[in-house]
């Protein structure tokens, strides 16, 4: 975790901050969802409690806390109470593995009468070299919270809902995994930092069958190298998070609320935190792979650093370094919010799939198209980067 006390403390604080980012973003997202859906349906949405209804979510959370604790008759305690905890874990673990901002370097500085050596911090929970494989592995654990909830509440229909939801989540994981193979081939690396480094600054340049073309007015983002993969990844991530138009397991008549029918109080809220966590992970991956991560499209990272230090904002170079990575963090947050907005927007526009249509779409259209995209990228790369 670090060489000396300062680094360990900062790493632990960073860990807590990332966890708080996820837990605090959920109320904002729920508020945003209710406001945006209200706006779309030409009504107001929560605006009574606090300015613009922002405190509404705090009121809901407190109300949820004081509900009567309910335990189904023949339910299994370990599974019933374990499911909400298991719902929290995969989303947060995956989010902490994705870089939220540029790493920054602190020179030697004196503080509290002691000399603190130079440090290198990354705006990220923990950095495994092969980031994407760990993120996919951890987010594939999400199916267990559904199965445990369905089985623990010993209700026949919630078990059916849980099986349907996990079968859907499992089969769309295939398309999710396969759609990333194309973009990984283009970037030729697994680590997030190399991927983002290859997408910074210069306008779009690509090698098409030997000749290098460059389009000045397009940024060098991943989506232009692999548009089909981006589309499949984004649609499959809808199904991963059980959001509309793929939320059939929670919507059918007799399934009522699917796997979390028997839950009330804060456990229900924890399932929502899990769902929004998966949504944030999918939007963060979308932004990192296809839209240049935390970098500003045409501006190289160094020019942002120079702008901050020259702008007189920060006197000490350490503060300048910290401020530049803060700017990158805000840019990344803006991109993630754009995708979250699209999630909410799609929820209130598209009708819901029937279950066999939903499974057919997953197995018979998304998977073949993702495979086609992989083969297409392979052939294009093989013929254009040939050593002539």
């Amino acid at each position, binding site marked *: *975790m*670090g060489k000396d006390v300062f680094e360990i403390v900062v*790493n632990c604080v960073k*860990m807590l901050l990332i*966890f708080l980012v996820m837990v605090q973003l959920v109320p904002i997202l729920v508020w945003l969802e209710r406001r945006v859906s209200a706006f779309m349906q030409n009504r107001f949405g929560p605006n009574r409690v606090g300015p613009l209804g922002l405190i509404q979510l705090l009121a809901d959370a407190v109300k949820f*806390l*004081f*509900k009567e*604790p*309910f335990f189904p*008759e023949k339910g299994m305690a370990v599974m019933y109470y374990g499911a*909400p*905890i298991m719902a*929290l*874990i995969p989303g*947060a*673990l995956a989010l*902490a593995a994705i870089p939220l901002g540029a790493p920054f370097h602190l020179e030697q500085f004196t503080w509290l009468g002691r000399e603190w050596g130079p440090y290198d911090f990354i705006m990220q*929970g*923990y*950095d495994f070299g092969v980031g994407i494989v760990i993120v996919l592995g951890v987010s594939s654990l999400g199916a267990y919270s559904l199965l445990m909830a369905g089985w623990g509440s*010993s*209700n*026949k*229909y*919630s*078990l059916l809902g849980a*099986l*349907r939801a996990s*079968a859907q989540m*499992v*089969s769309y*994981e*295939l398309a999710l*995994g*396969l759609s990333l*193979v194309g973009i*990984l*081939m283009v970037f*030729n690396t*697994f680590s997030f930092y190399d991927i983002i480094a290859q997408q910074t600054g210069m306008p779009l340049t690509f090698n098409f069958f030997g000749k290098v073309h460059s389009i000045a007015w397009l940024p060098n983002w991943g989506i232009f190298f692999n548009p089909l993969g981006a589309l499949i990844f984004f649609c499959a991530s809808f199904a991963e998070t059980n959001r509309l138009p793929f939320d059939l397991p929670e919507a059918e*008549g*007799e399934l*009522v609320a699917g796997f979390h*029918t028997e839950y009330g*109080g*804060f456990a229900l809220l*924890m399932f929502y935190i899990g769902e929004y966590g998966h949504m944030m992970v999918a939007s963060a991956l979308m932004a990192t792979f296809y839209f240049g991560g935390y970098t500003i499209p045409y501006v190289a990272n160094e020019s942002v650093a120079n702008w901050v230090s020259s702008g007189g904002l920060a006197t000490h170079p350490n503060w300048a370094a910290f401020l530049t990575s803060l700017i990158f963090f805000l840019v990344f947050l803006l991109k993630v919010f754009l995708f979250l907005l699209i999630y909410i927007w799609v929820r209130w526009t598209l009708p819901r799939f029937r*279950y*066999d249509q939903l*499974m*057919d779409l997953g*197995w018979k259209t998304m998977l*073949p198209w993702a*495979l086609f995209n*992989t083969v297409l990228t392979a052939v294009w790369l*093989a*013929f254009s*980067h040939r*050593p002539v």
Partner: protein
Amino acid sequence: MSALLAFLIFVGILAGFGAFLIILSSSLGPRPKPNPAKNMPYESGVAGTETAESRVSVKFYLTAILFIIFDIEIIFMYPWALSFMDFVKSGQGMYILGAMGIFIFLFVVGLIWEVKSKALDWNR
């Protein structure tokens, strides 16, 4: 190594936070007043006839089996994606394309057979 330590500490924080929330929410509310009608699993008003473990359509496990098989084929594509450009740049582009072509051909044959054998059809 320190990344793994951070990972485990984070799992500890999450599990602790979740358990704290569960304990808090079950201790704060009014004392649970068990009453038979409320404790029955919610079947939208209809009295449940059998317990949860009764017969449920066995179609789901077939999806899980096929998921495992195709997931492994995708896992084999990750190292291919990583070393693809190195092979192409060192002049072995056709070799790697051929090797993976056979693998993807088998993948497609398996997928087509699954579709044709109606293993994945949900008649509901």
